[in-house]
């Protein structure tokens, strides 16, 4: 056991893990986010709290994460390297730990040009790989990136992301291995719509035994409408949605139900893939549907971790 978080215990148990995701609001009123968190309380082990996702200014992931801790829930705070240099990142990670946050997820972050401050200066002092390695060394070697000593104990469960749908495809497994080497204990993938490609990627992952060295949680996003599907397909960096899936949604009478069905079918298939340790449900702007997905996918009630 590294950090003793609920997520770590769940992964170690060998059960199929479920995590959810919450996006902080574009304002300081976090009641709605808390409401969504409450709604999934019995359906997910932990919640990703996004860090100014798609480069849009929102309440900080650590502040929201600390709120979840107060609610007796478990946050996974996301840290992107776009907005902070190594001084600020390390400081924030110490602060998050002090506030009881036990899981940290390392990402590069969408480029600032996508957000509502496109004229901002991207920081990118370090990259996501260096972030994972730096935070691992802070925890295990008690050293800051600059070599200075970290005072006292600090512990967190470290994760990273991987996108099997980005290019070059053949490098995506090398990159996963590199992230494991850097210190990632769990991996959440980009939203899976192209299951065939995901399965090819998992084959390569298994060939190298990488699924035994870290827990791979498959990313699932329910499509709420045809517009949402098209938007994600065309505008969201790193997401690919096969035309067949868009057509299926287009042909369906009840779009929301079809979107749910697709998500549930995806989870059913992920459960069957050797080496997939769980699922990460990103119901963006549709958080209230998570319990239904979890239940209909046969993942409820959740075991006690």
């Amino acid at each position, binding site marked *: 056991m590294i950090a003793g978080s609920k997520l770590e215990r769940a992964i170690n148990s060998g059960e199929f893990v479920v995590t959810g995701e919450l996006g902080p609001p574009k304002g300081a009123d976090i009641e709605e986010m808390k409401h969504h968190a409450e709604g999934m309380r019995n359906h997910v082990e932990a919640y990703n709290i996004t860090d100014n996702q798609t480069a849009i200014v929102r309440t900080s992931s650590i502040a929201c994460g600390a709120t979840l801790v107060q609610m007796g829930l478990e946050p996974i705070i996301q840290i992107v390297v776009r907005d902070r240099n190594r001084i600020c990142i390390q400081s924030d990670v110490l602060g998050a730990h002090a506030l009881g946050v036990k899981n940290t997820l390392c990402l590069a972050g969408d480029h600032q040009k996508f957000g509502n401050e496109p004229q901002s200066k991207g920081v990118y002092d370090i990259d996501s790989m260096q972030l994972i390695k730096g935070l691992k060394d802070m925890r295990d070697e008690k050293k800051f990136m600059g070599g200075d000593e970290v005072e006292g104990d600090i512990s967190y469960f470290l994760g990273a992301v991987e996108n099997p749908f980005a290019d070059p495809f053949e490098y995506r497994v090398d990159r996963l291995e*590199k992230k494991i080497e850097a210190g990632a204990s769990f991996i959440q993938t980009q939203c899976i719509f192209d299951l065939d490609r995901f399965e090819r990627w998992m084959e390569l992952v298994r060939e190298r035994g990488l699924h035994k060295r870290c827990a791979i949680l498959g990313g699932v996003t329910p499509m709420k409408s045809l517009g949402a599907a098209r938007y994600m397909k065309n505008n969201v960096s*790193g997401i690919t949605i096969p035309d067949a899936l868009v057509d299926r949604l287009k042909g369906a009478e009840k779009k929301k139900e079809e979107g749910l069905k697709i998500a549930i079918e995806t989870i059913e298939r992920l459960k069957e893939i050797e080496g997939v340790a769980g699922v990460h449900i990103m119901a963006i702007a549709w958080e209230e549907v998570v319990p239904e997905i979890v239940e209909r996918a046969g993942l409820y009630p959740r075991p006690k971790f």
Partner: protein
Amino acid sequence: MIIAERKPLEEIAAMAAPYEKVCVVGCDTCVAVCMAGGRKEAEETAALLRIHREKNNIGGVVESFSIERQCEYEMIEEHMEKMKGYDLVISVACGVGVQTVVDYEPSLKVVPGLNTTSFGYPVEQGVWKENCLGCGNCVLHLTMGICPITRCAKSILNGPCGGSADGKCEISKDVECAWQLIHDRLASFGRVGDLAEIQPPKDWSVSHHGGPRTSVREDVRIDRGE
């Protein structure tokens, strides 16, 4: 070389409006090659300004000439008396040229006529591409001669990120993913395995982030006996 683009004429005209005797001063080196601020472009800019001022009933004169290199005192010196005869010098050199003129003769009023964009090269007629940021610690030996600091929008040293698709960067389908290029070039030399090594955080202190840089070579300095 240094790449630059001319500022919008309206912006230049507004800077020049309060002045009677104005001169557009070109630079015949980098910015002449990128067709932004050489002798020809200095003349063009002056001509456009004259028309603009005439339309807006602004009197005075607008003339032009160029200097071989505005970033060297020796070459500025030859033209200094001429420049002193104007109320305003619009330098269409890069930012280095503008400042070298100001450093040489602080009494001159000098404004920039260009926006300096980058270090790069002409890919084809009319297209210039940025490929160096002057970060102070070159990594091209690790990346097969393709600079990830400049050409990756996130300056990643352990790329490619999850936004790379079909060889393009997430920021635009017109921008190549530098890490796809690096990966492909490594693959063609049978060296993809090189990417397994985690490159440590970059030392930005030798880049501009360490403050303005001055390079000193004691071995070539001239002892003036002062």
